[in-house]
């Protein structure tokens, strides 16, 4: 089995890919995808640290990961609903073009 | 309650499923090339030409009057009249079709040609398996393909054929009666002429040859059976 650093590196890579995407892409959905990637990389960290911890029986890492997945689902639902509403209003999903915040 | 209508329907389909194995009412399809549903007597598909003799071309009843060609709604009949005449079934000299084509790809089986024909010479066939690989040439049929015997007609439409035969018999009888009358009239005229001539001869020597007897009508090609 691979040592812990492998998982942590993969997780860091995913996080940075997500970060880079969220910073460079202009479409709100792409930003959201980037954020999802970052969340997932955190999850991988939770699981990896749980697996390599001295006391895996406590299952804390697993619990965190489960809750994180649930939060991510909620976040995706609300975020995408917002994007759709913004699109309806401004006819674009480009974050740069949506400047005014008043409805 | 929700679902009862669905259950009822399912019972109905189940009945039909079971019924299809034992109830002929519930399995109405037939397996076509092997099994065939008998054709209805009135059924019509495409026209054919009736002939009365062994040689189809000689016995065609058609006299190329071109009424059907004119009346045909989709204009699928094409007739060329012959140059010469020949005797028809009742002995009258008639034209005959030099060409008689029907484009079956255009024909709509409406039977109007049959209705308007005064000579009982075009009738509807019941042949329907006419599929052909040649869309144009294969469905353009000429008089050789169209000619079918009166026996065929009697076989496919017995009732209609009997009526047609009867009508023809009447025609023939009329023609014969007329011919007979003609002969008699001519004979009578000849006799009168003779008596006149005799009287004239008695009166003076004027030579008048007796008129030749009228040509004997050729017997009907096929005496229609009643």
């Amino acid at each position, binding site marked *: 089995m691979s040592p812990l650093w492998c998982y942590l590196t993969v997780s860091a890579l995913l996080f940075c890919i997500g970060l880079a995407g969220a910073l460079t892409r202009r479409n709100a959905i792409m930003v959201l995808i980037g954020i999802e990637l970052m969340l997932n990389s955190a999850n991988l960290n939770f699981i990896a640290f749980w697996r390599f911890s001295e006391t895996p029986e406590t299952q804390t890492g697993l619990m965190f990961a489960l809750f994180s997945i649930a939060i991510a689902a909620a976040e995706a639902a609300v975020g995408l609903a917002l994007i759709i509403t913004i699109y309806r209003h401004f006819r674009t999903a480009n974050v740069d073009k949506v400047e005014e915040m008043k409805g | 309650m*929700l679902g009862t209508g669905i259950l009822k329907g399912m*019972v*109905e389909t189940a009945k039909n499923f079971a019924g299809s194995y034992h109830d002929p009412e519930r399995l109405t399809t037939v397996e076509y090339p092997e099994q065939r549903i008998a054709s209805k007597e009135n059924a019509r598909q495409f026209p054919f030409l009736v002939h009365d003799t062994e040689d189809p071309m000689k016995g065609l009843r058609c006299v190329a009057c071109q009424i059907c060609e004119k009346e045909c709604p989709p204009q699928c009949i094409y007739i060329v009249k012959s140059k010469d005449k020949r005797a028809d079934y009742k002995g009258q000299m008639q034209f005959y079709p030099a060409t008689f084509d029907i484009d079956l790809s255009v024909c709509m089986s409406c039977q109007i040609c049959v209705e308007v024909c005064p000579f009982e010479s075009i009738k509807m066939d019941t042949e329907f398996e006419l599929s052909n690989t040649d869309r144009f040439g294969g469905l353009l049929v000429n008089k050789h393909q169209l000619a079918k015997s009166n026996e065929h007609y009697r076989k496919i439409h017995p009732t209609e054929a009997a009526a047609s035969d009867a009508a023809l018999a009447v025609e023939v009888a009329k023609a014969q009666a007329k011919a007979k009358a003609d002969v008699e009239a001519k004979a009578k005229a000849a006799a009168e002429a003779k008596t006149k001539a005799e009287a004239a001869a008695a009166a003076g020597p004027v030579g008048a040859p007796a008129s030749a007897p009228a040509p004997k009508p050729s017997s009907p090609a096929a005496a229609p059976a009643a």
Partner: protein
Amino acid sequence: MTFHDLAYDAGKTDFHRKAQPVGQGREGELLEVAMGPQHPSTHGVFRMDVVLDGETVVKLKPVFGYLHRNHEKIAENTSYLGSMPYTDRLDYFCSLTNNWAYALSVEKLAGLQVPERAEYIRLITAELTRVLNHTCLAGFLLQDMGALGTPLMYAFREREKILDLIESLTGARMMCNYMRFGGCRCDLPAGWLDAAKKVVAEYPKFLDEFDALLSGNEILMARTQGVGKLSAELAINAGITGPMLRASGVDYDLRKVDNYGIYSRYPFRVPLGDHGDVYDRYMIRMLEMRESLKILEPALKDIPEGPVVDPKAKLRGFRPKAGEAYGRIETPKGELGFYLISDGSPNPYRYRVRPPSLINLTILEDMCLGQTIADAVITLGSVDIVLGEVDR
């Protein structure tokens, strides 16, 4: 509610739908779909240009003419008799009623009388045709609703029996070309009446079976009730006829109104719907079939002996005097009218078909707006169109 309360108050309502720009500001969200001309449920070569918002129809334009062969022009270049087989091909499900409508118009134009026996034969064949058409329509409608062919096959099983009758009478199953000006082409063959009586007597059994199969089905009711609604006022104004009009609650059946043929001799009821939706149209047709059977039963007993065609009617060289006539009858799909102008020649000067299918399509968009694409399909199915007649 009597009919006069319903009668339409003209000054106040404008029934015409103005061409409205659809979905302004929401261009990206709308989906424009051309349903047809190659589509499983357009009943022929027919197209509906539909604009969808999700699954909701926001615009629907019927497009047809794919089958247009200019029947009217052909008829103007053909003799009166020569048009008869062409009428078969208008509504190819009901060629006998088409024949009758045309024959009736020519008889009006030329003043021909129809012998008693021929009138009976016309009535019997027309009602058989009505039963046949409604049976098939029910099958097609349910097919559109997704009932994988089962109702359609049952309908075709029964239709076959009537088609057999028609074939043994006229020689053809669908393109009958049977009626003539002043009567019918030929007399009934031997044993035909008994066969017809048997079919008519057994038909209610099938209707009961069909009712058990589907009329009470929850899915059918949920799919059809409240779908494709048509108000009585709009139906009248848009010239809708036939079962569709009666499903909207308007009592207008030409068999009663015009009293053509010998319909006045047989009491039958005209079923009326109150909602004008697809379910009403379906049920009205089911009920009309039962009423038709009620006409058929005594008519098959009463039919007198006699000639079947007016001896004065000429087959060839038929030339009505100059004039014009509009004759119409109640075909299974609605009012089929023929408008003929004669100038004394063997061909009609003007020959016009008033096709019920075409005019019943006028309000297709009104019925479908705001409903889903699935509803549009069954609404079209309930209008009961035949493209041979729409396009002519």
